[in-house]
């Protein structure tokens, strides 16, 4: 158990040591502030002595000047120490976050399938912040407290050993009290967080599902559902409140008792003539100074534990090795013909094979349609080609090169992708289209948008090409998103194009537009399409039917239909499902053609 945090500390130490000079500077400042902090109460003692005995106003003025002057110096020093510490800890958070981000970006897709997005985000934000908070607060407190403890206790011992022992005994009760409190309240707090999360999610569901709740007349059921977490949350919050009420005021009591004891014993000494009032004043001042460190020691320890857990999680990300990496001598692909070959490719996690013995050759410029039920391995073929994963055995060749010998970035630069779940960034339409080629000219962007049949609807958007889309922008329909993604891929003018288009549109508009966009896309490049779209399938040079990770049929539409096998049956089903839409689209194409002829006739 001890092993782990130590390993983590050595990782964190790398970041700290990089800024050792800041650390040293901070320690020097803290040493000086501790010294001044211990010195100032003595000035107070001298004031008392002066008023009682010397009664010299000029000396009093000099003492006061010293008090203000030293406090001023103390202020400057403590600002320097805090600021240095803040800079130092925040800079480390900044670096850790950048490193985590860089590592996330390098991961292969398998990593993202295994990890939840929320988890990743919270590690890179909250957990990294936790490290910062430790370095910026508890770590500083640790240094300050240890200096202060040593300095103050030494000064106290020099005044009176017995009194020091008694005060420390009482003060240690504060330490015990706080560590007990910390131990008891932590589980309660985390419990209440859980209840609060449940409360929020019940609330969220019953509001976003309100129509269903109403329609099914389940209001009472929902009320009961809400009562549970609300009740539990209240109870855990009350538990925390009563723990606070029990433990926190005790500190004040102990402090008071300590002052009473010191006053009593000190008073006795003074009356016996063994001590001066000024000394008692200085001593009480020191004892009071120690209450804060006593409260903090427990906090420093819990802070450390939390930080260690958080740091562990952050470094897991930073040190995660991407599964797919460039070989040291990987080559740069300058240009490409677009010849693809799968040779005896196997792929699978654990023992479950997802692809079995795939052999497939695609010649430059060919269009291949991948067909088959969900889970048959179509998307995996594409992912392997993109090198989101590496094959388990066998190999994939592009223009004769094994793709594992090519630099990943240079491979992907030649491949354009329109994926199934299209992600658009929260940026303008223009930036989204030029995502793969940020320096593209506006003319080029409009040109590809026109080819992708996206231009017409884009110009109708509130700000045209500058309209912000994505999560916090304008909402686009599925078809519109797809056309933007097509334009985005087109702009790259890739030699190899991959299209994952497994849904077929139920509505005619989308089908119509996409058919038009697709035909433009396929020209002059090697294309692999996952599709259910009959119109696309029929026009493909080659159709590959997959089932259960294997290629079961291969050929063009006519030859496969003649075979009356799997493809034949699949085609019948698809045709039945798409018949209506297809007919409507055909009708519309005809209409369009007639109109075109009409306008042409009218125009010329």
């Amino acid at each position, binding site marked *: 158990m001890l092993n782990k945090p130590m390993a983590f500390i050595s990782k964190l130490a790398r970041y700290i040591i990089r800024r050792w000079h800041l650390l040293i500077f901070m320690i020097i400042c803290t040493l000086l502030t501790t010294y001044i902090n211990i010195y100032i109460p003595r000035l*107070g003692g001298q*004031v*008392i002595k002066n*008023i*009682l005995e010397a*009664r010299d*106003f000029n000396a*009093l003025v000099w003492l006061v000047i010293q008090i203000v002057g030293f406090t*001023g110096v103390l*202020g*400057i020093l403590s600002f320097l120490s*805090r*600021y240095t510490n*803040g*800079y130092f800890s925040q800079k480390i*958070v*900044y670096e850790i*976050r950048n490193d985590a*981000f860089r590592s*996330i*970006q390098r991961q292969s*897709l398998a990593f993202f399938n295994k990890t939840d997005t929320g988890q990743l985000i919270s590690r890179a*934000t909250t957990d990294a912040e936790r490290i910062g908070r430790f370095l910026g607060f508890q770590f500083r407190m640790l240094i300050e407290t240890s200096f202060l403890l040593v300095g103050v206790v030494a000064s106290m011992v020099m005044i009176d050993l017995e009194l020091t022992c008694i005060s420390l005994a009482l003060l240690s009760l504060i330490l015990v009290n706080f560590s007990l409190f910390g131990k008891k309240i932590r589980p309660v707090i985390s419990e209440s967080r859980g209840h609060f999360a449940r*409360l929020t999610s019940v*609330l*969220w569901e*019953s*509001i976003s*599902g*309100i*129509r*269903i709740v*109403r*329609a*099914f007349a389940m*209001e009472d*059921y929902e009320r009961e559902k*809400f009562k549970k977490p609300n*009740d539990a949350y209240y109870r855990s*919050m*009350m538990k925390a*409140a009563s723990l606070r*009420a029990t433990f926190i*005021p005790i500190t*004040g009591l102990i402090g*008071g008792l300590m*002052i009473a004891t010191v006053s009593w014993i000190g008073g006795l000494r003074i009356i016996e003539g063994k001590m001066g009032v000024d000394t008692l*004043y200085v001593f009480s001042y020191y004892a009071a100074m120690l209450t804060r460190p006593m409260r903090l020691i427990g906090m420093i320890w819990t802070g450390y534990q939390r930080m260690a857990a958080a740091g562990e999680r952050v470094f897991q990300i930073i040190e995660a090795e991407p599964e797919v990496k460039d070989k040291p001598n990987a080559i740069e692909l300058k240009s490409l013909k677009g010849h693809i070959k799968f040779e005896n490719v196997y792929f699978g996690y654990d023992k479950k094979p997802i692809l079995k013995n795939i052999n497939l050759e695609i010649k430059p410029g060919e269009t291949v349609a991948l067909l088959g039920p969900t889970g048959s391995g179509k998307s995996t073929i594409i992912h392997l080609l993109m090198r989101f994963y590496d094959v388990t055995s066998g190999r994939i060749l592009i223009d004769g090169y094994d793709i594992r010998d090519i630099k990943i*970035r240079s491979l992907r630069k030649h491949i354009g992708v329109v*994926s199934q779940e299209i992600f658009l960034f929260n940026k303008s339409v223009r930036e989204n289209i030029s*995502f*793969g080629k940020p320096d593209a000219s506006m003319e080029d962007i409009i040109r590809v948008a026109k080819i992708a049949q996206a231009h017409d609807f884009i110009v109708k958007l509130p700000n045209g090409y500058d309209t912000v889309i994505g999560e916090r922008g*304008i*909402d686009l329909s599925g078809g*519109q998103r797809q056309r933007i993604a097509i334009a985005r891929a087109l702009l790259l003018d890739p030699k190899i194009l991959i299209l994952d288009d497994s849904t077929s549109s*139920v509505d005619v*508009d989308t089908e119509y537009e996409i058919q038009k966009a697709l035909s433009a896309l396929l020209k002059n490049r090697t294309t692999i399409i996952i599709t259910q779209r009959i119109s696309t399938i029929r026009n493909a040079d080659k159709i590959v039917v997959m089932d259960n990770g294997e290629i079961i049929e291969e050929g063009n539409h006519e030859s496969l239909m003649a075979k009356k096998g799997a493809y034949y049956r699949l085609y019948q*089903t698809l045709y039945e499902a798409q018949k*209506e839409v297809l007919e409507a689209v055909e009708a*519309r194409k005809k209409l369009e053609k007639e109109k075109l002829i009409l306008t042409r006739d009218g125009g010329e």
Partner: protein
Amino acid sequence: MGWHFHHRHPPLEKTAERRMPARVIFMRLLKYLSPYKGWIAAVVLSVIVTSITDIASPYILGREIVSRYILRGDLEGLKAIIAIFIGIQVANWIANTVRMYGLGKIGQSLLFRIREKVFEHLQELSFSFFDRSDTGDLISRVTNDTDAIGEAFTSGLIQVASDILILFMTVAVMFSINVQLSLASMIVVPMIVAIAIIFNSKFRAAYQMQRTRISNVTSKLQESISGIREIQSFTRERDAMKEFRNANLENFQANLRATKVWGTFFPTIQLMQAIGISIVILYGGWLSLNGALGPVEDAVGTLITFTLYVGMFFGPIFDLTNFYNTIQSAFAAAERIFEILDVEPEIKDSKDAVEIPKVRGEIEFRNVTFGYNSKQPVLHNISFHIKPKETIALVGPTGAGKSTIVKLLCRFYDPQKGQILIDGYDIKKIKRRSLRRQMGIVLQETFLFSGTIMDNIRYGRPDASDEMVMAAAKLVGAHEFIERLPDGYNTKIGEGGAGLSAGQKQLVAFARALLRNPAILILDEATSSIDPYTDLLIRKAMKLLLKDRTSIIIAHRLSTVRDADRIFVIDNGRIVEEGNHEDLLRKGGLYSRLYEMQFKEPSAEAIASSSRKRK
């Protein structure tokens, strides 16, 4: 209706304009506190005790312990005063414990009751309310806003009361000891006030900035993870890194700024205290040298007491200058909650409403006129009659009033004119729940609750057995895919669970509706893209679902329209044509034109509605 959403985020600023007077909000909040009168009395009492004991300590330490007993060598007296001092510490401790517990009790109970009340109220509110509101905003009102009230209102008020008490009593005690010295020690007070005001606003600004900057970091991160495929396929890793680094750097700078504010704050307080104490020492020393503070012994004690008091000014003054902000945000939060509670449900059961017996499924609209606001009717004088077990398809352009008809039938809204009858009962005279219990609704956007598939299908009929659930799933053709899920029917869906495709969700919703076996079924057909296999499944399931009950379908699919017993063509809030597919086509009226438009031409609305800004 007075419902606006100026603030999506709980604001900290003064910019949140309040529409309710502070007095009204205050009185309403007080009403929630009335059950806790006992606790409030206890807390007030304990605040008085802690304030008195807090102030007594410096006095006893300086003027009593040091001056009267130690310096004058009175051992017996010292013993007695130490005993009193300990007694005061114990009283202070007990009072503090009571105060903290009482505040927790009052605050948490208040929050509990407000949350419960708001939730119950939300369950009563009409659809028109939810149409107008944003879910995230409602949730934040119930969770964040209630918490803001709790913290600021209960502890804030008590804190202020005790601060004022302490300040006044301190000043009174100081003046009773020595007027001149008291006046001298007050010199620093205006400076403390100025510093408090300046730093309070700096803290708020720095905090605000930190919050927006960290949320930038989070959203950049979120986007780059959700878009990881795009970033990697388009090899834009370096640019993503650059963008992230910028957001991260800005966050770093904001944090550094906050550090600077905090770093200057503490030294400034220390310096102020040192100056205050120095003034007391200098002036007190001078007074003492002139004998104005009595014997030397008394002078020393007085100076110790005064220096301790000067140190006690800062906390209360700082709290007080911040009180306005605290209470302001508490009131703003309270107002946002009261705004919800003040919305009256538009539809309530009338007093003489009856339970409707088993419904046969006869529906009649008699001269129904309705508009979401009374000036613009959406439905004009609609009348129709549906026989039990008939299947009716509603067809018409977007905004024609199709879904309004359905909503009126479910009594989500009441018509302004006319009557709606089910089995001859006016639905206004039926208890709403008894009506809805016999209706099944499948909406276009399928909503499933987090929980197992089993729970979801059972949602409308919690007493259904597992066998019944599976039977329903089998009938609609959902059984197969459910069985293939990792845990079958016990697979968790929704948050943190397995994701279902749109088509699968719809099949689950069908099973859910079928299990209820409603006499009347209302169906809003999906238009979204689903894969052709599921589409075929759904079509088969629908046929089954429609059997043996009255069904009203807002139809988007050609096949549904063709299979309906009757088609109502709705345009501009009126039924313009009625009949089956062939009849209507033959007629060559609006239906045949609509048929052309909807199924054969791109509709202008599709583009317009899809480019609407998201709420």
